[in-house]
């Protein structure tokens, strides 16, 4: 059985490592083979970008060599896929090589699309790339006072990020002793301050206590960079001195170019995690069009289901498990406190009060991630 994993991010790496352990006997007996194709020889811990944007981590702390994270029996190539030939069970890579498979796993992730909004790319800071996070920190460091506006694109990776960034901004300017010179304005796309109702109920009094202003039903339409005004498709305007953006995301360009899904999101069965119409193609992480959070956590729990099912297909010819929509997200709440949101398709999150021990657990997880992505945690 030839298993081909396309994408070396969180989801793809956990799938490959989990499978390598489940199928160690079959791999030794040459009855199964796992190959991974990735666009990069490095693996980034993406949640760490938030800390880079506030000067709390250095960019080089976010990376490991991808090959060092993989079980030795996994064949790894830095050679991104350019063409998916699903009807022939083959892909073609940038180098021109053709790889055949029996089962394909697509975990190519997502990318920011600030250019979708006129003026946003040049007018706003963002922490969703290494370069952006460093630039954002320098902008924050130089900021001496005025109005900081936060805007949120739809859809976006890490739904908790808008409130976490807002709490972090409050803490950062407080620590610098200029909080009284900074007006914080939070703009959010739907009609409460977070998509999860319980997070919104919890965050609202926190915002009130911190003096954070907020406006809801604010979907960015245009940024007037010269006059420093951000305009919403709902008709309102917000004048700022510093604009922070959580930009709209799309799936990867290769997915769109191959016609696998609009805006790069692949239509996926929410329980089986197979691509609609292709039972031997699994999709996970940001790449799916599922109505679940685009987070490493979702990718992790999906990866465990995908690996369990592919292994059972190899061993007994049928999948055995279903994804229940599980997501677990840490929420950094400022003042060295954190809480978490855990939910699935059937059960909404029941938010607990933020506390310091959960913050230190999150700080520990920032290091434990490398154990997690190896499929050990």
């Amino acid at each position, binding site marked *: 059985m030839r298993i081909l994993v396309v994408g070396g991010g969180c989801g793809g790496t956990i799938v490959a490592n989990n499978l390598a352990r489940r199928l160690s006997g079959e791999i030794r007996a040459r009855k199964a083979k796992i190959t991974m194709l990735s666009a990069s020889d490095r693996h980034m811990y993406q949640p760490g970008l938030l800390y880079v944007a506030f000067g709390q981590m250095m960019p080089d702390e976010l990376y490991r060599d991808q090959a060092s994270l993989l079980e030795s029996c996994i064949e790894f190539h830095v050679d991104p896929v350019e063409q998916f030939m699903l009807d022939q069970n083959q892909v073609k890579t940038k180098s021109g090589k053709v790889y055949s498979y029996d089962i394909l796993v697509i975990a190519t992730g997502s990318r920011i699309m600030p250019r979708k909004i006129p003026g946003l790319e040049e007018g706003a800071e963002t922490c969703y790339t290494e370069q952006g996070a460093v630039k954002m920190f320098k902008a924050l460091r130089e900021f001496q006072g005025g109005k900081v506006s936060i805007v949120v694109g*739809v*859809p976006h990776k890490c*739904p908790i990020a808008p409130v976490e960034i807002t709490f972090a901004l409050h803490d950062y300017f407080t620590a610098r002793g200029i909080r009284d010179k900074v007006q914080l304005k939070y703009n959010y*796309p*739907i*009609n409460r301050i977070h*998509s*999860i*109702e319980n997070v919104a109920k919890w965050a609202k009094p926190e915002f009130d206590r911190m003096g954070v202003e907020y406006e809801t*039903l604010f*979907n960015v339409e245009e940024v007037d960079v010269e006059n420093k005004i951000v305009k919403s*498709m*709902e*008709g309102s305007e917000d004048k700022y001195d510093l604009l922070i953006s959580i930009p*709209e995301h799309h799936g990867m360009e290769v997915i769109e170019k191959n016609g696998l899904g*609009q*805006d790069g999101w692949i239509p996926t069965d*929410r329980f089986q995690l197979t691509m609609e119409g292709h039972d031997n193609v699994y999709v996970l992480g940001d790449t799916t069009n599922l*109505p*679940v*959070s685009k987070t490493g956590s979702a990718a992790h729990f999906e990866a465990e289901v995908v690996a369990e099912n592919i292994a059972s297909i190899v061993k007994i010819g049928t999948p055995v498990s279903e994804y229940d*929509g599980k*997501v677990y997200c840490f929420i950094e709440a400022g003042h060295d406190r954190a809480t978490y*949101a855990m*939910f699935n*398709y*059937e059960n*909404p*999150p029941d938010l607990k009060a933020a506390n310091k021990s959960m913050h230190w657990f999150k700080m520990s997880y920032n290091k434990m991630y490398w154990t997690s992505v190896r499929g050990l945690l």
Partner: protein
Amino acid sequence: MSETKIIDARNTYCPGPLMELITYMKQADVGDTLELLSTDNGTADDVPEWINKVGHEMVSSEKIDEVWHIKVRKAK
């Protein structure tokens, strides 16, 4: 007129039904009809509020077997 696009946001808490609708509304062409399926009762109020504020068109809203079926048309 193009066919109705179904958005299945049943049993979803994050990003949630309205956020799903906004995502698909961006992908749609003017004149397209979208039907949002949601098990969240708040959706029945949240969607019309956004649709009216941004200037799209509400087509219908009804609850069938505990699922809200909310049809909207992209107007601009």
